[in-house]
């Protein structure tokens, strides 16, 4: 009896949550604020700076979305979520979307009733070792001690990699990135493994970056992207096409600085549709026709956002690699605006 009451309540609240999330766009507009689930602090991707302003690669995508939906990139509230709380925060409606380095996997997309609407960063797990070990490939790491964060998929990937290559290792488990860096520097482990973007940032902040190399093997696929709830396709479309607009803008050479000018003078029909001069692309998703132009003008196109936060001119110094546009040999590919 008690159990059935409990389950009934659960079902009823799930149903109500379902109704509420039927119109995330309307909720956001009524609230006048976009609530973006973010990281609790990840170098280059999202963290508040010393003046309490959120900055980072993921943050800029949220701001572009805020500009598209509400017309103002500053009307975004960032809610820090941890690895444990992120998906529940999204499912319960506490945040409108997650942009916080979440890997797109089958079970998350289906079983957790979430939708990954795109990939804004292709990452993968790599290794960093000291140069004087004389190792040039991860397959030579037989018998090595490896610093690894516990309770993450990187731990499982590591085990898989060593097993499939028939070599052994000793894990040194650490709680977080900072501890891993300290242990690695103190010589407690021969190799440190985490996402390649994190390795690059860590290497850049070592006292002697030149004495450390990141091995060429990338042992996992980590497509990171924005996540929305299942069942609200309009909202999913908005997030997906805002990201695509930023990619198309880079492909077509539309930047933060020249967007207005391009809108006035460009003769390329796709640019004209993207910037809302021709057709009614924005209104098809429930926004207005200038929505994508505003998104581009918030922090620039995909390439500009990349360069400003994590690109080679920043101290983090990530190469575009897989995140290069498809025309330059990368994987970033936007379907056409038509």
């Amino acid at each position, binding site marked *: 009896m008690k159990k059935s009451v409990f389950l009934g309540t659960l079902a009823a609240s799930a149903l109500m949550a379902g109704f509420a999330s039927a119109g995330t766009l309307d909720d956001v507009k009524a609230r006048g604020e976009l609530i973006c689930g973010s990281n609790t602090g990840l170098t280059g991707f999202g963290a508040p700076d010393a003046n309490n302003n959120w900055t980072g690669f993921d943050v800029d995508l949220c701001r572009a979305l805020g500009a598209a939906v509400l017309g103002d990139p500053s009307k975004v509230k960032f809610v820090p979520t941890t690895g444990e709380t992120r998906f529940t925060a999204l499912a319960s409606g506490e945040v409108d979307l997650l942009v916080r380095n979440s890997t797109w996997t089958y079970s998350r997309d289906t079983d957790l009733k979430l939708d990954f609407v795109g990939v804004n960063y292709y990452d993968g797990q790599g290794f960093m070792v000291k140069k004087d070990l004389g190792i040039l490939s991860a397959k030579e790491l037989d018998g090595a001690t490896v610093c690894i964060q516990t309770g993450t998929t990187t731990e499982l990937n590591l085990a898989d990699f060593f097993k499939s290559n028939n070599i052994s290792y000793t894990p040194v488990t650490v709680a977080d990135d900072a501890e891993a860096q300290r242990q690695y520097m103190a010589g407690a482990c021969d190799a440190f493994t985490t996402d390649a973007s994190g390795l690059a940032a860590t290497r850049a902040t070592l006292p002697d970056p030149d004495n450390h190399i990141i091995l060429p093997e990338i042992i996992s696929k980590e497509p990171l992207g924005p996540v929305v709830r299942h069942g609200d396709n309009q909202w999913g479309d908005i997030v997906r096409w805002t990201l695509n607009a930023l990619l198309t803008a880079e492909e077509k050479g539309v930047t933060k600085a020249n967007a207005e000018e391009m809108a006035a003078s460009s003769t390329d029909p796709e640019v004209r549709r993207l910037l809302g001069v021709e057709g009614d692309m924005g209104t098809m998703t429930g926004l207005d026709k200038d929505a994508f132009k505003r998104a581009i003008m918030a922090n620039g196109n995909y390439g500009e956002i990349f360069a400003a936060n994590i690109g080679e001119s*920043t101290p983090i110094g990530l190469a575009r690699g897989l995140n290069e546009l498809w025309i330059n040999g990368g994987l970033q590919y936007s379907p056409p605006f038509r």
Partner: protein
Amino acid sequence: METATPIFVRNEMLGPKEPPTSQRGVVKWFRENLFSTPLNSILTVIGVAFVYLVLKTVVPWVWNGVWTASSLSECRQIIAETLGPDSHAACWAMIAERWKQFIYGFYPMDSYWRPTLAFALMFVALAPVLYFGIRHINVRMVGAVGVLLMIALWGLGTDGAHIGLALVLMAALTAVAWVAPKKLVWLTLLYPAIGFFLLWGGSVWGPVGALLGFVILAFVWLGLQRQVGVVVAGGIALITAAVWWLSVQTHVTGALHAAMPIGLPPVRSDQFGGFLLAFVIGVTAIAASLPIGILLALGRRSDMFLIKTMSVGFIEFVRGVPLITMLFVASLLLQYFLPPQTNFDLILRVIILVTLFSAAYIAEVIRGGLAALPRGQYEAADALGLDYWQAQRLIIMPQALKISIPGIVSSFIGLFKDTTLVALVGLADPLQGITKIARADINWKGIYWEPYLFVGLIFFACCFSMSRYSMYLERKLKRDHR
């Protein structure tokens, strides 16, 4: 007739001689305390060597730390230049740049005076409670808090108007502490509303309305308790106040705000962080859990079946569940059961569950105090013809609470330190949350000990003061001659 004193007899007394060198002063102390046996001598040498080794690494590391630099690599460069390559020293520059975030979180920078003033007023509000309205202590405390507040506000670069306002306020409070120290207790009663208003801002009428609810509660209770008894009167008063809070208050305060829009710019809970967050959660939970804990302890010893069962059930359930579970319930589960789109603040949810958690522990500590009272005290209270509440108030509780002081303070210290666990639900506590944010800055990535030491030092200062106060209180309340 005096006989001549023989030559070998001394006429005057000899003055006392100093004990031999081995039996006095430092040497004696050393011999007795450090080198009394061969084993003790060896242990002393080992201990001193250990302390020396630790200090030899730690003190230069702390002392040679760099205070001005814009990044960790610059720190390392400066250290390498001044101390030579391969030397290690702290990089305090990170604390120098980020200390405001460690203290205030993401609170708007031009409003730093508000939490600072609220913090100062907290001590003024505590003074009459902690020191029973003893005049000289209260005046000294309020005066010292006032001076420190002025220095802090000036250091934070607050504008003149707010410093002036705070100066007048603190001067007035010092005067009150001088003239009528017991009257300061009114500030204590009003403090929850004042603190809320200063921290969260918004219309002044909201907190005023909430206070009015308590006034209604008090009047109804006082008016009815003679006729229907303490408990029933309490229930009726609570219902009346709830009606006011839930349905009437918003209309009244809305009308008042429309007529007289006085207020401060609102600050959202998610802008709280660092020690501000730790203090908001810790102080609220400490203040609220003591009365709830007392009621639960009494409930557990009650003869009434229902009250007893409910108290026992609550206490045992809460004590059987880890605090982290409660925090996850606050953060994740409650959101599913509440109606969608209800904006039930995460910090408020966390405060409520931390309070309930702490109350269960306090209840058990106080029950220990109640159990330690001799049976005769209860019988004496009955023999005097006191009813239950009078007996509790006048005879039982003062003694039981006195016995429980060390346990209560221990619980409070533990609770205050446990506030750092809120990092697990994504709140920016000083230890993990803000540290992680500071490290996410590429300039400070790779820094490890400095933020922990800084935060640890502040926590130590707070917890050590609480501990010293509890010792003062124990001495002060000591009535026996053991």
